């Protein structure tokens, strides 16, 4: 049985021998190299731009600046996923340090680089603003003329009577939590190659949303969607940073100016830091609770620092609104979620998008409440967690929810009820736990195509992006099971908008669920076609026939059978194929936030033990148990690795990661100064639990155990030494200061 088997990744040998055809290695004949001139200022008028000297430099084939977009037949200057507010290159004004101002294409990267220095730009500096709370105050510098107070998006939810709820409470607690700007830090940077031929555009890009990028590029260049082809090879990581259109317009516009030779744009690490970031957030959370531990009301106000352009924020800020409450029974809820323009690089999805910041607040807050009530934090959560049949703040009924099981499983694996050695000398130990809920895309559709040939080879055509998470392996297992062939007979053809069927995006942990369901449907359709073709050969009506294990057989007499290969050969067919799709519908009322937030809820929990050195403030996570709701597990080893990876990944923003800004300049745009966890930081004991349900739907698990990491660690610190850190990352210095002030 292909489902439930711990197969290694299909391309594991290629991965460890360096054979995976990453974008980083791709070269085309005649290819040019692009470099980007970037703004040195956070907010300024461009008063002069002269690239004539650069254009005359050796090897330079094209220079592109905003003026090029005024020419007849030129592409649109502005692009964006929903709100088209971002220029391909800055026109008149720059809004963050690192914003592209001009592009060079040259024969070699060195020539392109040298030409950058020959572009003359003069600026007139404007006042800038970096903090999202300050950016909405009267008199704050305004980034976009059309957006007063820099409020790009405001998502809200009104459920019950918030004031009455607080009035009913025995205790009302309000806290503010902050989460800084951070980096997705894929090993592989953003790389795109664009080529124009016969009025058609082909783009190879390390991207999570091939069709979204195709559609955005078609708009930008006034083309039919079919005139744009987007091909996505395996990615060296993405973590949300490649979730929407990013550097593709620059490469495509430069290639348009070049008019023939392909153009390659590959970002350097420092450029990654000014291309996309995790949203900084300030979250004010206020909860009313009765002495018996039941909640009466919760109000959450979140200011998301979205950077200088909308990018993914128009979709993510409303999603973040839903993700900011927490998986608890709360009768009265009031949420405001603001996406705010600031003079910083645009923010977008970051693995555990918006949930990481939100769960940081509501799960830290939960332990504050437990302390005030004198309750065990696990026990207080279990009392209030949503179960199937409960209604969430959106008004929707919860179904197939297992928050209790996830939290209990992680706590049990940690040994929550076992005695804890509280430490000696300068070491203090403590335990903490956290749980999270995350919505996925409410309305979406995925398609898959399966094809079988006369060799018995099944080809899965899918636009799901393989980015190291093992999606193609898991989907091949689903394909094998759905058609009834061994996994070794399945080959996967990855995203190419001219070849593979539609899928909007590999993100929000939606692929295993959505693409998995689409594959099950296409497998069922392919089996029907095989049965139809077999019927005359077996001389039985189709409703007497079944398909499994590579053959169609008479249901009542399984020995009468014909293999798939023989069906094709005897029917003189080269191949048979079938397409299947799966779609979901939902959405929230923009004024009240009532409706259907998501077709299913992502659910994860974690429990950990930490050691705090009270003389240094240094925190060491010694033990961690993570549990996610997986519905039905397709590949246990790969699924466990997702849980483990989430914990290790999550320790970064919890303890180390922060983009440090000085007057709009990023101080630490490299991996020596910007600190991510090393393997030596991995907890000595790291456990993964996969919670399954009888319903047996495939669930995405790529993010579930990440958002609980920071609050679980913070709660364990609170347990160990009694101090509450409310701003990420939880640095050693913050802990020591808090200890000395306590």
């Amino acid at each position, binding site marked *: 049985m292909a489902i439930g088997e711990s197969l290694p990744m299909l391309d594991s040998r290629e991965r460890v021998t360096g054979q995976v055809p990453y974008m980083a290695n791709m070269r085309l004949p005649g290819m040019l190299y692009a470099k980007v001139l970037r703004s040195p200022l956070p907010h300024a008028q461009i008063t002069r731009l002269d690239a004539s000297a650069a254009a005359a430099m050796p090897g330079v084939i094209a220079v592109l600046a905003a003026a090029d977009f005024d020419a007849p037949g030129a592409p649109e200057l502005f692009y964006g996923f929903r709100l088209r507010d971002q220029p391909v290159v800055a026109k008149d004004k720059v809004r963050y340090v690192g914003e592209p101002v001009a592009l060079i294409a040259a024969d070699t990267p*060195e020539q392109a680089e040298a030409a950058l220095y020959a572009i003359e730009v003069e600026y007139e500096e404007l006042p800038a603003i970096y903090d999202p709370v300050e950016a909405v105050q009267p008199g704050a510098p305004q980034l976009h003329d059309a957006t007063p107070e820099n409020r790009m998006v405001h998502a809200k939810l009104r459920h019950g009577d918030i004031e009455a709820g607080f009035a009913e409470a025995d205790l009302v607690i309000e806290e503010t939590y902050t989460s800084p700007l951070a980096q997705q830090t894929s090993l592989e940077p953003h790389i795109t190659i664009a080529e124009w031929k016969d009025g058609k555009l082909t783009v190879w890009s390390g991207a999570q949303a091939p069709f979204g990028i195709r559609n955005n590029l078609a708009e930008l260049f006034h083309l039919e969607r079919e005139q744009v082809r987007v091909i996505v090879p395996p990615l060296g990581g993405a973590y949300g940073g490649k979730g929407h259109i990013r550097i593709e317009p620059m490469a495509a516009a430069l290639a348009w100016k070049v008019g023939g030779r392909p153009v390659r744009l590959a970002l*350097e690490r*420092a450029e990654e830091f000014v291309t996309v970031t995790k949203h900084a957030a300030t979250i004010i959370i206020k909860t009313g609770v009765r002495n018996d531990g039941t909640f009466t009301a919760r109000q959450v106000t979140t200011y998301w620092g979205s950077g200088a352009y909308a990018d993914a924020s128009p979709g993510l800020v409303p999603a973040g609104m839903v993700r900011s409450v927490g998986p608890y029974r709360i009768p009265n809820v009031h949420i405001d979620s603001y996406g705010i323009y600031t003079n910083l690089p645009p923010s977008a999805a970051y693995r555990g998008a918006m949930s990481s910041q939100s769960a940081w607040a509501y799960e830290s807050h939960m332990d504050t409440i437990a302390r005030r009530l004198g309750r065990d934090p696990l026990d207080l959560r279990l009392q209030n967690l949503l179960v199937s049949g409960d209604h969430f703040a959106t008004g929707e009924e919860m179904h197939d929810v297992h928050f209790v099981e996830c939290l209990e499983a992680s706590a049990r694996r940690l040994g929550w009820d076992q005695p804890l050695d509280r430490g000696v000398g300068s070491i203090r130990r403590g335990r903490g736990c956290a749980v999270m809920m995350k919505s996925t895309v409410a309305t979406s559709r995925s398609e898959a195509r399966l094809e079988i040939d006369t060799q018995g080879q099944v080809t899965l055509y899918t636009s799901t992006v393989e980015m190291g998470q093992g999606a193609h392996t898991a989907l091949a297992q689903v394909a094998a099971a759905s058609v009834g062939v061994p996994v070794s007979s399945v080959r996967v053809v990855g995203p190419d908008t001219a070849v593979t069927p539609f899928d909007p995006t590999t993100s929000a942990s939606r692929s295993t669920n959505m693409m998995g369901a689409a594959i099950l449907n296409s497998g069922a359709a392919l089996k029907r076609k095989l049965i139809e073709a077999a019927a005359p050969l077996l001389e039985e009506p189709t409703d007497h026939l079944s398909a499994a294990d590579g053959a169609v057989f008479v249901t009542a007499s399984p020995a009468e059978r014909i293999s798939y290969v023989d069906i094709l050969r005897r029917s003189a067919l080269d191949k048979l194929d079938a397409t299947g799709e799966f779609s979901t519908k939902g959405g929230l009322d923009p004024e009240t936030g009532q409706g259907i937030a998501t077709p299913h809820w992502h659910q994860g929990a974690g429990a950990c033990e930490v050691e705090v050195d009270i*003389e*240094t403030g*240094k925190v060491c996570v010694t033990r961690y148990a993570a549990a996610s709701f997986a519905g039905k597990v397709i590949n246990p080893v790969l699924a466990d690795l997702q849980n483990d990876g989430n914990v290790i990944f999550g320790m970064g923003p919890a*303890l*180390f990661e922060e983009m*440090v800004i000085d007057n709009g300049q990023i*101080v*630490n745009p*490299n991996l*020596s*100064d910007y*600190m*991510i*966890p*090393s393997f*030596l*930081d991995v907890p000595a004991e790291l456990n993964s639990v996969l919670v399954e349900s009888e319903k047996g739907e495939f669930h995405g698990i790529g993010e579930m155990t990440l958002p609980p990491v920071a609050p679980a660690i913070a709660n364990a610190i609170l347990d160990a030494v009694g101090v509450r850190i409310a701003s990420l990352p939880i*640095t*050693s*210095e913050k802990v*020591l200061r808090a200890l000395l002030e306590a």
Partner: protein
Amino acid sequence: MMRFLQPETLREAIDLLSADSSSTTLIAGGATVVLMLQQKLITPEVLVSLARIPGLRGVREDGDRIHIGALTVHREVEESPLIRARYPALSHAASVVGNIRVRNQGTLGGNLGEADYASDPGAVLMALNATIITAGPSGGRRIPASEFFVGFYTTALKEGEIITDIEIPVLPEGTRMAYLKYKSRSSEDRPCVGVTAVAAFANDRCTDLRVAVGAASEIPRRLPKVESMAQSQALTDELIREIAESYAANIDTLDDLRGSAWYRTQMIRVHVRRALEEVRHGNR
């Protein structure tokens, strides 16, 4: 376009460096220089590699001294049986530089020449009374480690000078030493504070104490007056606390992403104390 040159003799390298030292950068292992080039922190016209010059790599015994060639990589320093036996704190410090990739590529001479304050080996060599041996246009020089670092990323090297050797004198029998690297962030971070303590004892009384604090200020620091407080004394808890307090009070700490000046002062106090407790109790 930057030129890359690979001289085969020290003389040739000195001549190249002396020709235009302001636009020439030496590269040994490249662990740092390559990063700085990539980040465009330096834009030399000429890059002179020392890799082909013979005799600059390896650890050898020379009478009562140990010589470490400037091009010896950290990993080799860590694993050298001679260094392990005689200067375990140096071996340990080499074993915690950066990460294994850096340790297999970065050299001790390169590390010293760069004089990055956030570094491990410098403070250890200072506490070991090491000498930095150089070659230059007007001959060789012997620079005591305590005089080698002169400021922020600045050394006592003169124009055209190249580090060839690090010489460490033998220590009296019964000397104990420790290097404590305190990392405030990830396990592969540079030090927030690094403390080396070297102590010799006779009849449980300290006959010689050296404490060097690295990564906390612009250059590694020893405080001889404070060290002398231990002369002929037993290293009691009280004395250790007093020394640690004096180090904390007398080093002008700096701010960076690994900690504020205030925090570094606290960390000096804690880690000088811990290092002294360690040398009091046993060898390392």
